């Protein structure tokens, strides 16, 4: 037995010493393929954003002379200055709402006992299976009705754009998974110190949940920032439309103004990129801690 182990060890060591680790090479090849799949469309977008219309429709790979003016034209044509502010406000309200409501819902599902808890959680998870388009009409009817009975209009206003997204099933699930892993001893200790659920949540749970909270911030931010179909449904004027609505200015029946559309796309994704780079560490930790990682 010992000699077998020793032989295996020697074989492995010999293979490594020759510098060939097939498993590692294979891993890098697969990762490299993934990088290409992800990065090439991004590079294509940046390259096209600097082309003339002729180059963009003519399948050029690189612009002959970078058209930096495309960014200025895209900004002006798509009225980004107007939409940008809307997106910032709507995203901030949505993400703020998600932090409050998803945290509370997740905490209740993870740490509290109440009738039909599992049934409610199953119902919540089942909403993940519904395509977004299926919810548009019922949600539209709901926000219209709430606008009619409430003190402020919902349609064509911030409530219709934010409230339906303040409770995200995926974010609740994610936080619930993390909260459920917190050792019970902490809750026991908190109780001994006289803490109830509120103090325990605010003073114990949330401070150690920075990573998953940042993860739902990023998910929420991306969802709210990129939203288009729902905002178009519940707004009639540009007053509250988000930045993604501006990109539609470059489409008409005859085709797309690809170069301007791509310049606009670069502008719209910049905030997401910046947010991701700033919170990259917490995001990765959040994914790992909440069991989403495969």
């Amino acid at each position, binding site marked *: 037995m010992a000699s077998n182990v020793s032989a295996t060890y020697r074989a492995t060591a010999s293979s490594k010493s020759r510098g060939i680790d097939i498993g590692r090479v294979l891993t890098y090849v697969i990762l490299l393929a993934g990088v290409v799949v992800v990065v090439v469309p991004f590079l294509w977008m940046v390259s096209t954003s600097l082309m003339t*219309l*002729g*180059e963009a*429709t*003519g*399948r050029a790979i690189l612009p002959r002379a970078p058209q930096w003016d495309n960014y200025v034209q895209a900004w002006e*044509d798509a009225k980004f200055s107007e939409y940008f502010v809307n997106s910032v406000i709507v995203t901030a309200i949505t993400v703020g709402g998600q932090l*409050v*409501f998803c*945290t*509370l*819902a997740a905490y*209740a599902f993870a740490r*509290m006992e109440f009738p039909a808890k599992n049934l*409610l959680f199953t*119902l*919540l998870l089942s*909403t993940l299976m*519904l395509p977004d388009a299926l*919810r*548009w*009409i*019922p*949600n*539209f*009817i*709901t926000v*219209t*009705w709430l*606008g009619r009975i409430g003190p*402020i*209009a919902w*349609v*064509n206003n911030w409530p219709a754009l934010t*409230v*339906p*997204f*303040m*409770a*995200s*099933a995926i974010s*609740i699930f994610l936080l619930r998974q993390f909260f459920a892993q917190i050792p019970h001893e902490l809750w026991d200790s908190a109780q001994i110190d006289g803490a*109830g*659920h*509120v103090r325990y949540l605010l003073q114990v749970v949330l401070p150690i949940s920075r990573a998953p909270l940042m993860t739902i911030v990023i998910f929420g931010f991306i969802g709210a920032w990129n939203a288009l*179909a729902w905002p*178009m*449904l519940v707004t*009639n*004027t*540009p007053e509250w439309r988000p930045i993604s*609505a501006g990109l*539609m*200015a*470059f*489409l*008409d*029946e*005859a*085709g797309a103004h690809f170069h301007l559309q791509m310049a606009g796309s670069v502008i719209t994704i910049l905030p997401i990129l910046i947010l991701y780079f700033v919170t990259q560490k917490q995001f990765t930790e959040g994914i790992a801690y909440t069991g989403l990682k495969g």
Partner: protein
Amino acid sequence: MKVRKLFTLLVILALALPLVASCAPGPTPTPTKAPAATPTKKPPPTPTPVPEACAPATEGPLAGVDPRGQTVVWWHQHSRHREEWLLEKQAEFNATNECGITIVPENQGGYNDIRDKMNAGIATGEVPGLVVGYQNDQAFYALAGGLADMNPYIDDPTWGLTAEERADFYRAFLEQGVHAAFDDQRLGFPPNRSMEMLFYNQTWLEELGFDGPPTTPDEFKEMACTAAAANADGTGGFILRDDASGTAAWTFAFGGDVSNEDRTGYMYNGQATIDAMTFLKGMYDDGCAYFFTEGYPNPELAARHVIFTQGSSSGIAYYASDMEALGSEDVWGATAIPHTTSEPVMDIYGGDIMIPATTPEIQLAAWIFLKWFTSPEIQAQWDRCSGYFPTRASTAELLTDYVDENPQWGQAMALLPYGTYEPQLISYQAVRDAAQQAFNEIIQGADVKATLDALTKEANELQAELMEE
């Protein structure tokens, strides 16, 4: 204690919100009921002085309906310079119309977005006074009771079109909004149109020994094959278009139709469609036509990779732009699809403007604006701005200088009197996909007759299914 109660309340709210947001019930939809007022909570418009010139009619079906002082919201898909022009016209109309009508144009995204909004709006009663859409959209909205029949407005002795005005519209354009499947109701009115065209490189044709573009399929094939032989690499001839409008255009050019006789169903297996598909398949087999899927065909024409392409007249500006971008000095043009008929039969298409079911007053005000918007003077301005074609013959007289500057556009406009149109049926969006698939199957070698029989059967079943719902 208070904090605990507040916490409990918030927890309950947090648990309820996801379920409410996903599955919230709404009021029972009343699609046929007209909404009482504007779609959102806006302050009521400032009362406008009521001129006597626009007093309600005393006779006819619209007797007693008063359009004065109404606000009409118009959902459209136009952006950038087109939208800016519309806003200028809005100001002009609002300031000058005798009825004190206020028109409010609002961009609502593309046709798909507008379709979503209309479907949601019909369910809640939040619909605008005017909306753009294709003919199959009209059928959808009509099925839900969401549209007004425009015949009473057009025919009205006080507010309608005179016989002269009606005759000024190209016949097919005006007919396209009349739906046989809905008791010949007029569900849309044409503000502009585009057309399926053949684009060609005149300079290259002359170099190959031809005087000009083809008029018959045989001439077309000869020219395309000559150009393909000159390139000798599989390109050069004609880029096939697998879109359903391409199939319809070739069927029309071969003297047939893809609608059945009373326009309540499909007929993709008529002799003309069979002949047209067989002809195109023959061109493909002989190396005179090919598929190009890596981008738009316009740069291919500009780069002399192909001598003929087919597409919408709305692409004329793109062809011109690509010619310039690639530094081509070739003369190019737009002409009719080669035809076996004595005169060209052109496939015209484009969105209509519809009047959703609201109140009689808003509906009449909407029609008054629409009548103004389609008057020749306004149409001529709109065509210059948008590149669309006019729907009235007399508009052409106001566009002579524009035609001089845009000769290909002028070539195409000359073909407007020969227009006909594709099915206006509720299922046409889905049937278009099926037609495209059938075209590709035929080119790949499937039996032409059997494929078109299957397509016709599938299309008619789809139509029957949707009309039953």
